[in-house]
C-alpha cells in the first residue's frame, strides 16, 4: 500500500468551500475578520487519510466511512483497535491522525480495492463462465429477472411508439 509521506498542512479558512476531489468536503463558515487584515486563526478543513479527504465536522467513526472500502463495521474495528474515542474529527491531534493513517493503510481501500475487483471480473470473463458472460453482456449476474428490471445495467428504458387505433387512422 502507498503510505502518504506528507503531513496534513493547516489550510487558511476561506469563505468559499474547498474544491473537493471526488468527495464533498465540509462547507466552512466565514470567520469574522479582524480589522480587515487577513483572516482569523488557522483551521484544518479536511484530513487526508488513505488518499481521501474525510470531513472535518463529523465524528471519526462516520468520517472514516467516506473512504471507499471502509463501512460501518470496519470503521468501528479501526477505532476499537486503536482505542480511540469517537470524537469529532477536527479534535484529533497530530499523532492520532498519523496513527489513524497507518491503521487505515492495512486495509485494501480506494484504488487498490477497485483494481482488485476489476481483476476478479476480468478473470471471470477470461475463463468464459456464466458469470463472466453476464458481465460482458451487461446483464445482472446474480440471477435477477431481466424483463422489467435491472435498469442500472441496462440503462434508460427504450420507449416504443404506440400503435394508432383504426378509428383515428380513418380520420
Amino acid at each position, binding site marked *: 500500500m502507498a503510505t502518504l509521506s506528507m503531513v496534513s498542512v493547516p489550510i487558511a479558512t476561506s469563505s468559499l468551500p474547498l474544491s473537493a476531489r471526488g468527495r464533498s468536503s465540509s462547507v466552512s463558515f466565514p470567520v469574522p475578520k479582524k480589522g480587515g487584515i487577513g483572516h482569523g486563526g488557522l483551521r484544518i478543513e479536511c484530513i487526508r487519510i488513505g488518499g481521501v479527504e474525510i470531513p472535518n465536522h463529523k465524528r471519526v467513526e462516520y468520517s472514516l466511512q467516506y473512504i471507499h472500502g471502509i463501512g460501518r463495521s470496519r470503521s468501528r474495528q479501526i477505532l476499537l483497535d486503536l482505542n480511540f474515542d469517537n470524537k469529532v474529527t477536527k479534535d484529533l491531534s497530530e499523532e492520532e491522525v498519523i496513527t489513524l493513517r497507518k491503521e487505515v493503510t492495512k486495509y485494501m481501500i480506494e484504488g487498490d480495492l477497485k483494481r482488485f475487483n476489476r481483476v476478479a471480473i476480468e*478473470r471471470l470473463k*477470461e*475463463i*468464459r*463462465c*456464466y*458469470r463472466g*458472460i453476464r458481465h460482458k453482456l451487461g446483464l445482472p449476474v446474480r440471477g435477477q429477472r431481466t424483463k422489467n428490471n435491472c435498469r442500472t445495467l441496462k440503462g434508460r428504458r427504450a420507449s416504443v411508439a404506440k400503435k394508432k387505433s383504426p378509428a383515428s387512422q380513418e380520420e
Partner: protein
Amino acid sequence: MPRRSIWKGSFVDAFLFRIKKNRESLMSRKIWSRRSSILPEFVDCSVLIYNGKTFVRCKITEGKVGHKFGEFAFTRRRRPYQTNRGKGRKGKK
C-alpha cells in the same frame, strides 16, 4: 467463489471421482454432471459438457478450477429479440 462447507471439500460425482486419476480417459470425455466441481486433476483436458441437449466442448484451464462444470455450458439460447421486432415492423410496412 461460493461453495459449500469447507470441511466437506468440493463436490464431485462418483463417476468423475473414479476416472479423475486416469488421464487418457479424460480426453474428450462426455460429462453429464454439471454440478460437479472442476478439480485440479482435470486441468489441460478437453471435455464435452452436456447442456441438456448437446455437448459443448470446453478446455479446462487453471483458472477454471473450483468452478462447476455447468458454468461453462449454457443451457439457454440467447435470442436477438430486437432484430425480430425490427423485421416484424418491416414486414408490416
